[in-house]
Structures are given as structure tokens and as C-alpha cells.
């Protein structure tokens, strides 16, 4: 026979060692990655910590122990039983057909192992689903309300909208009865791309979508929840300390799925109240003539999709988009990212990121894949054929919409 090369022990060890190294590398690298903003092994809030410590880590250890055990057994068997060739070795080993007690034994063994994993799951699952009845005092329109911290999260191709209800609070049952994500009740604050939350409070999220299925995920604060059109699914997040927490849509949602990102900005309660105070106000008429001209341009062109409260919200019906919505720009300049959470609104030195904003207005599809076909419903922002003067005016107008975010937020937004 021409066959019969054997694996040398070194080679066998090298391979099996590779398995172990891969497995250990997974744990180590994931545990140590420091510059990974989406790292799932770096929880930053009580919910994600509990999820990590109960749901993730124990089962990883169990899997690692089983993997090491099976790998050692395999390496041993290869090392112990390999032969070079049968031609010189005609002895047949004992023809063992099986050993029922042994097989029952390891069937039961695996059953018990999985029962342990099941117990872990049943131990951690309730904490994922439990909700607190926490309330927080929020001042809105000059009066104080007991806010049950809730944010309605709405997915759209390809950006996220966040709706805050303080005066007329909504709950899950009410929205489920309503059943339509395209005609949500009017909110006190509507923002997009960045969700602002107070630290130390469990925030209930009511997740839905206006077009296809998306998935909302801030890995540092909790796992993910699909945004299913016209369905309203409960979820929750909580941040322990102020910070900017990154997220990425995780359910394939079409063309620009990869460019559908979001951040959660956790502010301490006082800063959160200040943010509410600012953002619940309508936009103010600009004084700068350039910005005023920009408002003219906006009112003429942008208004077919975008709302600026105080400018066109009284006449606005529906955005000319498949989802029927486009980002509310009333406090555009208050966010540190734009265009679906993908571009920084400000440079590291705090200045407006004018280059990208202008390029975006010049032709959005060059910066982000959009579906723009005449005669069909748009998904994404079309090229508006603006001239350079109009672009400058619009930038001046947009830069004045809302208060500039705090320096640390702008700094944290810079990912590199």
C-alpha cells in the first residue's frame, strides 16, 4: 500500500494545541480588548454586568472545561494509539463493540452538564426580563412629573429615532394597542442617532420599527432587541456612570445595514434635566443672515422629509420616505453624530465637522449607500442638487439648531 504516513506526535500536539490556543485566545482577547467600543465583555451597567456574570461567563467556563477535557482525551488517544502501518503490524486490537454502562454514563454526564447550563440560564433569564418600577422627577414645561424612565426606540432605514414622553407618558400596553409605528403619539422630545439617558436609572425601552426589522444593541449596557415593524417589544438598559456607549444595528436591514449605528449618552440626573430643558424647546429663529438664508433653503427643500419644531411641525405630515420618517432636526447640533450615527458632527478640537457635513449635503449617497430611484419610495437621503452657497447656508443653519454638546461627549465620539 502506498499510504500510511503517520502524524508525528509533535504535529499532533501542534494541531490539538492550536485548538486550545484558539479557545483560550477567545476568552483572553475578548476579556482584554481595551479599545473595542462595542466589546461585549466590558459591561458598564448593572444589567449588562448581571447578564455577563450570570449568563455569559459561567457557561463559557463550562464549555472551556469540556473542550479542554475532550482535547486532552483526543491528543492522548492519538499519541497512544497511532501506528505507522498495518503491513508490519498485523495484530488486531480487541474488537470492542461498546460498553453500555460507559455509554449510559456519559449520556447521563452530558445530561447533567447541560442541566447545569440550563440552571444557569433559568437563573439569569429572570434578571433579563425583570423590570423595576423606578420613577424619577423630571421637570417639563415648567412642571414636575414622575417619569417612569422610558424611551421609545424606532428603527428606520438606516437610522434610529428616540422618543421621550414626559407629559403624556406611554406604556407598552398602550402602544401595542395602538399597533402602528408610523403614527406614534406626539412626544416631548424626538431625537435620533443618540439616545440620552440619566445614569443610575433603569430605562425601559419600547423597541419598534417603521419599515423592516432592525436590532437595537448597546453592548456595554445590555444585549440586543429586534425592532420589528408595528410590534412593540420591551427592553431595558442602565448605565452606572456618565459616558458615551456605542451601538450598531445587528439585524440585517438592507443596503446600508452596516452604516446604521447609534450611541447612548448617559448623563448624571442634573445634566439630564438640563438636556430635557434644552431639547424640549422649539428651534429658535436664527439671527445670523447666513443661517437665516439656510432656514429659507430648509423650508423650501428639506421640509419634505425633516421636521424642525417651531418651523414646520405644524404643517408637516409625513416624510417622503418608505418609513414615512426622517430624523427630526430640531436639535441637530446637540448630537455629536449625524447621518445614522456614523459621522462625527464635531472635530476633536470642538469645531464643527464642516467638511463631512458639506459633503453629505452635496451628495449623501457618496457617503452612505442609499436607495434613491425616481418614482419609487426613497430609503435614505437623496441628492438635493444644492449649490455651494445653499450648502454653506444650510450648514450655518444646522450648526445653530440646538446647544453644542459637552466637550467630553465630543471627545468620546472620536473613535480611532
Amino acid at each position, binding site marked *: 500500500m502506498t*499510504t*500510511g504516513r503517520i502524524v508525528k506526535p509533535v504535529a499532533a500536539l501542534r*494541531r490539538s494545541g492550536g*485548538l486550545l490556543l*484558539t479557545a483560550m*485566545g*477567545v476568552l483572553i482577547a*475578548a476579556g482584554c*480588548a481595551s479599545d*473595542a*467600543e*462595542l466589546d461585549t465583555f466590558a459591561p458598564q451597567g448593572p444589567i449588562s454586568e448581571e*447578564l455577563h456574570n450570570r449568563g455569559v461567563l459561567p*457557561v463559557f467556563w*463550562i*464549555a472551556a472545561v469540556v*473542550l479542554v477535557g475532550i482535547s486532552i482525551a*483526543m491528543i492522548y*488517544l492519538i499519541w497512544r*494509539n497511532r*501506528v*505507522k502501518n498495518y503491513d508490519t503490524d498485523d495484530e*488486531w*486490537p*480487541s474488537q*470492542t*463493540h*461498546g460498553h453500555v454502562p*460507559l*455509554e449510559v454514563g456519559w*449520556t447521563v454526564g*452530558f445530561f447533567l452538564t*447541560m442541566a447545569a*447550563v*440550563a440552571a444557569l*440560564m433559568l437563573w439569569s*433569564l429572570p434578571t*433579563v426580563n425583570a423590570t423595576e418600577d423606578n420613577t424619577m422627577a423630571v421637570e417639563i414645561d415648567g412642571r414636575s412629573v414622575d417619569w417612569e424612565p422610558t424611551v421609545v426606540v424606532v428603527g428606520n*432605514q438606516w437610522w434610529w429615532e428616540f422618543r421621550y414622553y414626559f407629559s403624556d407618558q406611554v406604556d407598552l400596553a398602550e402602544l401595542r394597542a395602538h399597533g402602528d409605528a408610523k403614527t406614534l403619539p406626539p412626544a416631548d422630545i424626538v431625537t435620533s442617532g443618540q439616545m440620552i439617558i440619566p445614569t443610575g436609572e433603569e430605562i425601559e425601552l419600547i423597541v419598534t420599527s417603521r419599515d*423592516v426589522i432592525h436590532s437595537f444593541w448597546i453592548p456595554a449596557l*445590555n*444585549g440586543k*432587541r*429586534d425592532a*420589528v*415593524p*408595528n410590534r412593540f*417589544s420591551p427592553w431595558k438598559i442602565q448605565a452606572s456612570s456618565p459616558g458615551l456607549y456605542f451601538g450598531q444595528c*445587528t439585524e*440585517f436591514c*438592507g*443596503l446600508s*445595514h*452596516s452604516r446604521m449605528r447609534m450611541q447612548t449618552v448617559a448623563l448624571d440626573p442634573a445634566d439630564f434635566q438640563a438636556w430635557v430643558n434644552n431639547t424640549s424647546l422649539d428651534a429658535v429663529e436664527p439671527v445670523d443672515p447666513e443661517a437665516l438664508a439656510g432656514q429659507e433653503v430648509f423650508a423650501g427643500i428639506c421640509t419634505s422629509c425633516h421636521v424642525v419644531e417651531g418651523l414646520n411641525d405644524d404643517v408637516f405630515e409625513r416624510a417622503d420616505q418608505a418609513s414615512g420618517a426622517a430624523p427630526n432636526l430640531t436639535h441637530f447640533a446637540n448630537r455629536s453624530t449625524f447621518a445614522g450615527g456614523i459621522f462625527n458632527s464635531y472635530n476633536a478640537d470642538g469645531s464643527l465637522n464642516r467638511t463631512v457635513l458639506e459633503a453629505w449635503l452635496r451628495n449623501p449617497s457618496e457617503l452612505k*449607500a442609499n436607495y434613491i*430611484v425616481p418614482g419609487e*419610495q426613497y*430609503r435614505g437621503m437623496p441628492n438635493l442638487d444644492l449649490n455651494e452657497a445653499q450648502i454653506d447656508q444650510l450648514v450655518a443653519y444646522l450648526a445653530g439648531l440646538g446647544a453644542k454638546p459637552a466637550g467630553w461627549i465630543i471627545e468620546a465620539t472620536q*473613535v*480611532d
Partner: protein
Amino acid sequence: MAIVEKQPLELGTADTVSYAEKPLGVFTRPQGGRGWRDWLSTVDHKRIGILYGVSAMFFFLVGGVQALLIRLQLAVPDGSVLSADVYNQVYTMHGVTMVFLFIMPLAAAFANYFIPLQIGARDVAFPRLNALSFWVWLSGAIFLNTSWIVAGGGADCGWFCYAPNSGVAFSPSHGVDFYAIGLQILGLASLVSAVNLIVTCLNMRAPGMTLMRMPIFTWMLLITQFLLLFALPVITVALFLLMFDRVFDAQFFNVDAGADPLLWQHLFWIFGHPEVYIIVLPAFGVVSEVIPTFSRKPLFGYEFMVFSGIAIGFMGWGVWAHHMFVSGMGPISVAAFSLSTMFIAVPTGVKVLNWLATMWGGKIRFTVAMKFAVATVAMFTIGGLSGVTHSVAPANTQQTDTYYIVAHFHYVIFGGGVLGLFAGLYFWWPKIWGHFLSERVGNWHFWLTLVGFNLTFGPMHILGLQGMSRRIDSYARGYGFEFWNLTATIGSFLIAAATALFLWNVFKSRRDAPYLPPPGPDPWDARSLEWSVPSPVPVHNFDTVPQIRSRDDWWHTKYGEDSTGKVVQVATAQEAAQTGEATGVHLPSPSFWPLSVALGLPLIGYGLIFNLWFALIGALVTIGSLYSWALEPVDDPDAAHDDHDDHDDHDDGSNDRAVDNSDSNEATP
């Protein structure tokens, strides 16, 4: 006088005479030959197996090129090799191609070729249906890929094609139409094949071969066929609804019209999860043949292996919603599917330990086939355990739809499925072609594949846990994804190099074959029936249908035990093997109608997409061919009919034999 001499030839029995008058509209039944036309009309399960295998390997290259494009795009941040649109098409078609056009047909190749040989049959139960399933599969495969040309692109909705993104409003290109119709055609092929092979396994086993004596590979394939039989109707219904939605505006999945946005997901995964077992069970079967052969021991715990396979087959139906843990199901549903997912790991773990126990105390010879088989066990173990980690529903909320899942299912499907099928290729190559694949080149192929595989998919575990989402066409700089993505891309090119080596091996071993000693019927000193016939297998498989006295009957023909229980050889393989020289064996006649039926189906597909008149033509072709098929004479009157004694395994006698498990029957020589 000439007339008198001709008479005995022309007039056999009264039956034959009736064929002298052909039914209206029926062509003469083609006869066997060696030309290319014979491959179009063949009903020989071995040739159909080869056709499946060759086509599957072609699509492995297609899917592989798509994989390389994906990896090139993701090698560095903000990749610009592909546009977002093209990337979505490429990753969709990569998945569809690898699942439906590579792994499933490659498993079908093995099933077609080896089920009859392993159970001692001359062919499958319905040879023309067998040809039909191949041609329908091929027509569906070609149809699906023509969307690149005639629709300007492939489907761009992911292989899972979730509604409502799959609707015309969100996926306006025709790619999704090709997906919906193409997969229906492919499903038809698998369904026909499943029925055929189930009947074959249940009814056509050689006398004495009880179900519990059936080779484990055939067992795993039988379970796979049952999974196909029940899973495909579900996806077919879903695809049919999707097709009606897109083509005729039926609104099944249109959320704006009140449709349930999660209905598609349930239908898809009720098919999609058993599909995972459809992919890995055949590979488990291969591994369960290869490891005993090269450990010189019988499979440890045959009964446990059979029943764990059946258990996986059953439990595989109760886990589908673990793909939907974050879709918003209630906690009780989540807990139930999480639990069922965990406990399907029990029979799978039993299999792994039984393979190890087979190696325990054995004498292991590391041929390339054995290396692939052992690597399958090792890699599948990693994939299985990473599966356990995200069966925990809360953990799943962090890991689902990230690269951690991509890593997991590639360790299962590539590590468990593809490596296992490669083990099968090296193992059975001499049986199919009459020469070995080169072990030297094979070694390089194996090590490059293993290293490349781990380099490609190992880092994806880390990427996933670092939060890299699936199905993204690019990622931004600075999220910590750069290093491992580049590593994965390098690994993918190692796999490509390994695959090139495999192709070189195919070519080289064929070129060198005339100068090397032939493998003989049983080169590996193996255990099951296919090794008792010459290599390559003669067209009639068995000169005489063997009488089965025990599990691993062929091994027991060669070896016995002395009084001390020591194994002694009683016959060499050469002595015990059949010669393959029988003549006059009655075999099913070839037919062009299966091909003809299949040709109409893509026309119906194009018709539904572009112009319904095409569909009419296609329907006429298919229905006309079915009609002609039905009227085709069952047997070629000119074929040999002189030996009616040993070919009656297509007749009603087979049922009786299938249940005949008497050990007292004397073996026929």
C-alpha cells in the same frame, strides 16, 4: 431463411411483443453506452452520484470565490472592494451556494453512490426519479445563478431573507425572485431524492440486513432524508408565499397590509434549523465509517450512535426559535427553546465520546481520510461548545447576529460538515475511480485546510465578542476589528490554496494512476459492503446480492476469531471480494425524460419573473415530459433478460427480505 433466424430475437415473451408497437408519442428508450449522451440519460445511481459530486465541487469553487470577495472587502476597515449593494448580493449568494449548491448536493452525491452499495442493492428504488432529482437540482442551481446575468445581480436579502425586507418595496431587484423560485426548484429535487432514498433504505436492503445491521453512514443518511422530507415542505410553503407576494402582490408578508412580521422567520427556521442537521449528519456518518476503519475497531456503541442520530433528528425540530431569542418572544417561549437547544447537545456529545472510544485501544493509522475525520470531530466539538455558550438565552442577546455566530456555524458546517465530507472523498475515492488520491498532496491539502480554517474562523469568535455585527459590508476604523479581520482574510486564502491543491490532487492522481498499483476492492481493509466489490464499481454493483449475517458483514467475511478471541484472517479481501464479472444482469434502462422534465422548470421560473408566456412553454415541456415518462416502456426490450434469478431485487420479494433477520441463513458465495 433470414426471417426465421431473426424470429427468436424479436419474439421473446408476449410482453416484448407488445413493445413492438410503441405507444403514441414515446421515443425509443435510450440504451447504455459510454458517450456523453449516456450521462444525460443515465439512471445509474453511481453516475448520478458522480454528477452530483462534480457539480457540487464546481459550486464549492463559486461559493469559495464569493467567500474570498467577502474576506477581501472586510480585510481592512472601510473596505471598498465591493459596493454595499454588491456585498449584500455576494454574502447572500455565498450562503445560498454553500448550503444548497455545495454541501447538500455533495452529501447527496455520497448518498446516491453509497447507500445502494452499503445495503447490497443494485440501484435505488426509483432510478428515473433519482435522475430527476439530479437534473431538477442542476436546473435550479443554474437558474439561481443566472440571476447574476439576466437580473443584473443575485439576491441581496441574506440566505434567511427575512420579511418584510424581502418584499418588493425593500428588495426591488429580481434577485429575491430568483431566490424564491430557485430554492423551490432545489427543494423539489431534495424532496424527490428524500422519498427515493428512504424507500431504498427501507425496502432494498440485501437479505439479512436488518435495520440494526445497516452501516452507520447509511443510517445517518436515512435520518437526513427524513429531515429533508419534513423540512422542505415548510420552506417550500414559505417560498411559495414569498413568490406570490413578489410576483402577484399577494401581501402575505406585507406588514403595512397587516401581515405578521415574524411569520416568515418561524417558517424559515422550522426548515432552517433541521437544515443544520441535514448538513452535518451525513458528515457524522462518514466520520463513523472512517474512524473505525483506520482504528481497526468496530464503531464503539453502534446502537448509541444510531439512536443519538435519531434523537438529534427529532430534537432538531424543537429548537428553531433559538434563532429568534431577541425577536421579542415572551420569556416562557425563550426559556423553552433555550432548554431544548441545550439538551440537543446531549446526543451530539455522546457521538463525540463514542468516536473517541472507537479510537481508544485501537491502532490508528493516519491516512489523509483519517486526519480529516479526526479533525472533523475536533472542529465540530469547538462549534458545538460555542453553540452551547449561546444556547443560554441571556448570553445569546449579546452574541446573536455577531461574528461569534459566524464563527460558531462555520465550525459546525465547515469544521463538522465539509471536513467530514473531505474525509469521505479521500476514503471512497479509490472505490469510485479505481485509484487513490495522492496521500502526499492530500497531506498538504489537509494541513493547509486545517490551519486556514482555524485562522479564518477562529478570530471570528473574538470579533463577535468584541461586538462586530454580522452582514455588515464594512466596519469603521477604531473599533478594534482590524487585526483579526486581516488574519481571517489571510486564513481564507490559505483555504483557497488548499482547495487548489485538492484540485491538483484530483488531476495528478488520475494522471499517475496507470503507473501505480490499483487499489483493489478493499484498500483500507474496511468493514462495509461497498468494499466487497471491485474498484471502480461495476455497473451492476453486485454479481450476486450478498446474504448479510452480521453488522460489518464484509469484515466478518475476512476475519474471524480464534478460541482465545484473537482476530484471525480467514480470507483476504481479494479472495472474498466479488469479481464484478457477472453478465446479463438486468438493470434499469436509461431515460431522457428526467432531464426533459427538469428543463421546463427554469422556464416556468423565468416566466413568473419576466413574462408569463415563458411559464406556459415551461409548463408544457414539464407536463409533456411527465406524460411521456409515464408512457415510456418500463424495460428496454433489447436489453439482456436472460438472467431472471438474481436481479429480482426490484420486485416485490424485497419486502420480505428486508424483514428477514434470520441468522441461520447460509451465506451465498
